[in-house]
């Protein structure tokens, strides 16, 4: 007996397995980043003084990165839409674009961090910087994870388009949900850290 509902949705829930699975995983990620936001709130409200993000962080670079990430979210959903329209080459372009934009995000981050280190600013410098480095660092690790998954699906994983196109399309949808979530976290991280 094969495992059912890997592609076709189950009638009463209306979902295929991985769709439920990824949303459950994203729920856990909400709690993960939620704990960091909660820590930020607790440390900030308890601190006699707290630096302004726009004073101490490169908000211009971060604005650029925000646009980069939002764009990568668009290319990601377009990758899935392309597959839904059976256009494999468009899919490759869009997913490739997503990966490149994600790499660009990390490159910018690299310059941002190294500039800070150069100025003698480290996570240990203060509670503000501890929070900044940890939250953006964990977020960055999630970007890296997304790059690896998307890279696999762009490369060797794309073979599944030939053998089981519906299942492959679902995989891209699932990867997309993860990627949009990573974008969503940044949408909150960016103003909270850089603009307040």
């Amino acid at each position, binding site marked *: *007996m*094969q*495992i*059912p*509902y890997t592609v076709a949705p*189950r009638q009463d*829930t209306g*979902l295929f*397995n*991985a769709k*439920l*699975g990824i949303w*459950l*995983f994203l*729920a*856990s*990620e909400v*709690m*993960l*980043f*939620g*704990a*960091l936001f*909660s*820590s930020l709130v*607790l*440390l900030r409200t*308890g*601190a006699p003084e707290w630096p302004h993000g726009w004073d101490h962080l490169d908000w211009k670079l971060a604005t650029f990165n925000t646009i980069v990430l939002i764009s990568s979210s668009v290319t990601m959903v377009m990758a899935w839409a392309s597959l839904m329209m059976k256009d494999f080459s468009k899919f490759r372009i869009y997913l490739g674009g997503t990966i490149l934009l994600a790499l660009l995000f990390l490159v910018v981050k690299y310059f941002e961090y190294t500039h800070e280190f150069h100025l003698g600013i*480290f*996570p*240990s*410098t*203060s*509670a503000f910087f*501890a*929070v900044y*480095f*940890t939250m953006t660092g*964990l977020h960055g690790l999630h970007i890296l994870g997304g790059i690896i998954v998307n890279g696999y699906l762009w490369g060797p994983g794309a073979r599944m388009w030939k053998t089981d196109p519906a299942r492959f399309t679902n995989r891209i949808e699932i990867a997309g949900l993860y990627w949009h979530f990573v974008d969503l976290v940044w949408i909150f991280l960016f103003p909270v850290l850089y603009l307040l």
Partner: protein
Amino acid sequence: MDHVATAGHHAHEEILPFWRKYLFSQDHKTIGIQYGLTSLVFLLFGFTLMMLMRWQLAYPGQPIPFVGQWFGEANAPGGVMVPEFYNQLGAMHGTIMVFLGVVPLAVGAFGNYIIPLQIGAPDMAFPKLNAASYWSYFTGGVVMLSSFFVPGGAANSGWTSYAPLSTIATQGQTWWLLGMIFLITSSLLGSVNIIVTIIQLRAKGMNFMRFPFFVWAQLVTSFLLLLAFPPLEAAGVMQLMDRVVGTSFFMPSGLVVAGQPLTNSGGGSPVLWQHLFWFLAHPEVYVLILPAMGIVAEVIANNTRKPLWGYKSIVYATIFLGFMSFIVWAHHMFLTGMGTTISAFFQTTTMIISIPSVVILTALVLSLYGGSIRFTTPMLFATAFLPMFGIGGLTGLPLGLAPTDIHLHDTYYVIGHFHYVVAPGTIFALFAGIYHWFPKVTGHRMNESLGKIHFWGSLVSINFIFMPMFIQGLAGVSRRLYDGGQQYAHAQGVLYLNQVMSIAAWTLFVFQLPFIFNFFWSIWKGEKSSDNPWDATTLEWQTPTPPGHGNFLIEPVVYRTPYEYSVPNASKDFTPQTEPEKA
């Protein structure tokens, strides 16, 4: 017994090499067994750590007999345990029992093996993820155990790893944090798998109110793991940052250690660690108890030849319990200087959460009434669970109310309370589960006489370990004292109990030997079992023994509720869930 669905070998099933069939198997039954064996080893190891601690508590400053020389000069010069080593044993005993022993056994082993069978599914929803979960757990375990061998030894700041002590602790704490990251990852992947499996892969006719209660218990447990663990993962990362990179998430300003002021930035909050830790660790205790209640329910219904009393009440109570478990955590923190409003809030929610626990326990007790009880070994353990859990639960009440908690917090009373729920509570239930499902997994029955010796010896000795703890706690003996309270005037009157408890602990170990022997011997030499030796109604007993890959050849169809025992006018005293209603 009739097989609604049999699983044979498909004609084109590939022959897998050893490493793929056993080591990196994706079959939920193999993975369940992997979890089971690994967790039993960890349980034994954690038990051994406790036996060492109990020597020091009973005979402080005396060299440990026979094995004292093995621990080296750093830990036990001349065989006498140093306090630092005692603290390692304490922290690792708790960590190993909870995270490497009980939960992997209750959820990883029993959950993985039984859930797909009970809901009529061919496997878990994500077999590769399942294998990844197990190996992540295994890796976490290796990391944890390795920490004993690094300079300074294993983690020694309690299983609770409170900052700032844990931040300045020896290297082993870093290993603890890394180990926890692997374990939490394993848990998260596993909980996603269980939830999707239960909701999506249940067979036709298996609607939610036809689930065996075991399945409900695992479903709610998995939601707890899914949503409560991530904050601890975040906290673990932050503590790692504090230790390795010098941040001050949990380090307040102005700390002085050994006469030297610390040079970190300060401005952190030790209480923040406690909030994030207990946000997980409170739901964690329901993770420890719910699968156990699930097992007890199955065993009781089967051995009373009666449906469970109040199935709906138990289900709703479990759901309510799961929800409430997220908003009671700070009852572990009453003494941290919290304001009276928030204290009142947590006291209230804590009192409220006792209600569903009582509902479930009462329903299970009422399930015995009027039953034709067969006191098989699983039934003995399941029945004993009830009063033992009752004691554990009742003793929690003064802890959940701040005024009484002021006196009892961090004393042996707490240790007595939580051990009652976990040891003669959960672990007894897990034993019941092992004896109950062993025939399905191995095709053999465990020996009943050895089982009864195991049961009675364990029941008596375990009470002699934990009951005196209430007395010591009420007398004011603090926990985590390596000399068991010797130095305190207020403890003198109850010190003799240390010896009582230690002898009881070593006796408890002796009574595990028949179990260990029985377990392995019966795999090969136990009395051969039929497919449904207990005449049970639930789906796992309608498969061949052991079930083949894919479990069911044709999708089973469910027509009935899970406990149709002694139905009037039925031909047998049990009716399997897959048996259609009479035409």
